[in-house]
């Protein structure tokens, strides 16, 4: 492999890692705060993809408009999903929450399939490409990369330095104690679900920039996001971002060096090993309560 191709793969791995990181960050926020595994997360990504594709292609809007619209719409959708399906059973068993979010996944994906058909769609215009230090980079990928990296930094700063971010981290750390020190936990819950959905939406929104989309594209991202979340430590925010990068690299270089969907097998083997040997993940705390 010559250096420029290798650099190209590295760039793509960072891009994919950033997207994985965003999806996993939303997933791990929801898990950390509410102890809910959100199966609908991949479906929320797909909604983001279709908002950008439809708004840009069919309505002729600028990407500068459609991507923020996707993020805001997903925040609202996330809050709605949380209040209607998760909040009533927040104290129920983990299995019940898992089943309900899977129900939401089925409804969203099927609705998109019914409205837009299962055919793959892509943005009609090409974004061109740039030549950079001997590396040929499609502009769509470059923009997606910049947005993903920026979003990761902003999300991290938000959680680290704002009052609300601290409240979210506090609730994730200890739900009961958060309640005692005066944090409105139900409010943190729906905001967290909204932010998680918005992150999924943003991750989905940049995907049409560099690949074609279909209603089931979210499934693959969802499953790998689970792997990342467990790898980084369920509920760990930095863990989600680091895990995202690791899986991004395994994905891209596995695709190059392994036959078929061998990269996916490698990802699952990593997952199973982590679950068995260190279920608390790379940066997670103690699993057993």
């Amino acid at each position, binding site marked *: 492999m010559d250096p420029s191709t290798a650099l190209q793969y590295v760039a793509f791995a960072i891009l994919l890692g950033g997207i994985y990181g965003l999806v996993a960050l939303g997933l791990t926020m929801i898990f950390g705060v509410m102890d809910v*595994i959100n199966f609908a997360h991949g479906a929320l990504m797909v909604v983001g993809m279709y908002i950008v594709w439809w708004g840009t292609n069919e309505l002729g809007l600028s990407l500068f408009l459609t991507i923020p619209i996707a993020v805001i719409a997903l925040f609202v959708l996330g809050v709605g999903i949380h209040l209607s399906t998760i909040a009533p059973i927040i104290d129920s068993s983990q299995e019940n929450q898992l089943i309900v979010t899977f*129900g939401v996944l*089925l409804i969203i994906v099927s609705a998109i399939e019914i409205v837009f058909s*299962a055919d793959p769609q892509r943005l009609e215009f090409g974004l061109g490409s740039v030549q950079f230090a001997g590396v040929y980079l499609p502009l769509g990928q470059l923009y997606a990369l910049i947005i993903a990296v920026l979003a990761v930094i902003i999300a991290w700063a938000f959680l680290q330095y704002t009052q609300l971010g601290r409240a979210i981290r506090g609730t994730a750390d200890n739900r009961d104690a958060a309640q005692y020190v005066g944090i409105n936990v139900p409010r943190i819950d729906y905001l967290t679900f909204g932010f998680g959905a918005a992150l999924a939406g943003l991750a989905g929104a940049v995907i049409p920039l560099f690949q074609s989309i279909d209603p089931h594209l979210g499934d693959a991202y969802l*499953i790998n996001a689970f792997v990342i979340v467990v790898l980084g430590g369920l509920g760990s925010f930095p863990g989600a971002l680091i895990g995202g990068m690791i899986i991004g690299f395994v994905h891209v270089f596995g695709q190059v060096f392994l036959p078929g*969907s061998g990269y996916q097998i490698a990802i699952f083997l990593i997952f*199973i090993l982590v679950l068995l040997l260190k279920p608390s993940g790379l940066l997670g705390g103690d699993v057993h309560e």
Partner: protein
Amino acid sequence: MSMSESTAQTQPSRIDRARLRYRTFRRQWYSTAVLLAGVFGILLVLPLTLNLYAFGLSLGTWVSVHMLILTLVWATTGQAWNMMSGYTGQFSFGHAAFFGLGAYGTIILLNTAGLNPWLGMLVGATIASLYGLLIGVLCFRYDLRGHYFALATLAFAELLRHTFNTVSQLGGASGFFRPLPQEYADGFGLIAFQFENALPYYYVILAFLIVVSAISLVIKQSRLGLYLFAIRENENAASAVGIPTYRYKLVGITVSAFFTAWAGAFWAMYFNTIRPETVYDILVNVEVLLPAIVGGIGTVLGPIVGAFLVIPLAEIARQSVDIAGFDHVIYGVLLIVIVLYSPKGVVSWPARLFELLEDRGLYESTIDDENMDNDE
């Protein structure tokens, strides 16, 4: 109002006498077996009634034998899933692994070694059991519970999907065609596990369901069943009183995997082809457990009742609306509605109906409601 109240207090009404009789009946050890026998009696003649007309209507307008077969396939898997996840509370989200191993085991042995599909089914089911045992040994040894166990089982199922998708010796993405019966037997018939029309398939899968239900019932009413339910209710307490929980959880997953594979083998012999995207699909994990969730987790009648609510509803909806994916919307709505409003499932509805009527003041019960919550 006062009249009815006073008479009600002195003498149970006709409805209440019936409810009391039913309650007494349900406390007998044989009652579930009797109800099951009744259900299976109906299922034995059900396909024969499809073409009967009453009041100018016929069941066959909406329901086909094919639909009934699908219903029984998922009832069988629901029953098998229930034996592990319903009884022990170890929530598996990866039963597609066992379903697929049963299907692939049967077809691969038939294609490569010419092994009779019935034997192939047993080999496939044994492989599925061993895979279940492997999952169990790894997960339970490291004490994975709740979310972690559900995700781990999903990972083991997805691992198989991608493996079968990648390895060409295992069929690759295009999977396998079912061979013609003449190639390995004397044409269609029971020995070949292939039939010219749908009706014999219906009776084969009904037989599977009867076997699995009977074993499920025997386990539930045995000492083993008590141990499994003790693990579900409080694993630490069960362990503390000396129940070897690790071993019994392994028994649960092994038995469950074995019978889930039967349904997979049936699937392989009923349809023309199997592919990773049909038998290992992420949705199969849901279809396996949906009947048990909807019908009532941990009950023997639940998976059957649940399957007969879910599958025909989804199939009829798909046929009448003629929109691909509409059946998945029905699945999704059912999952949410059942978990939010009726987590005990459909089998709890008769008791809940009386409660509801009483709350509305439409009906006065004369019997105390204690112990009324029969779990099925």
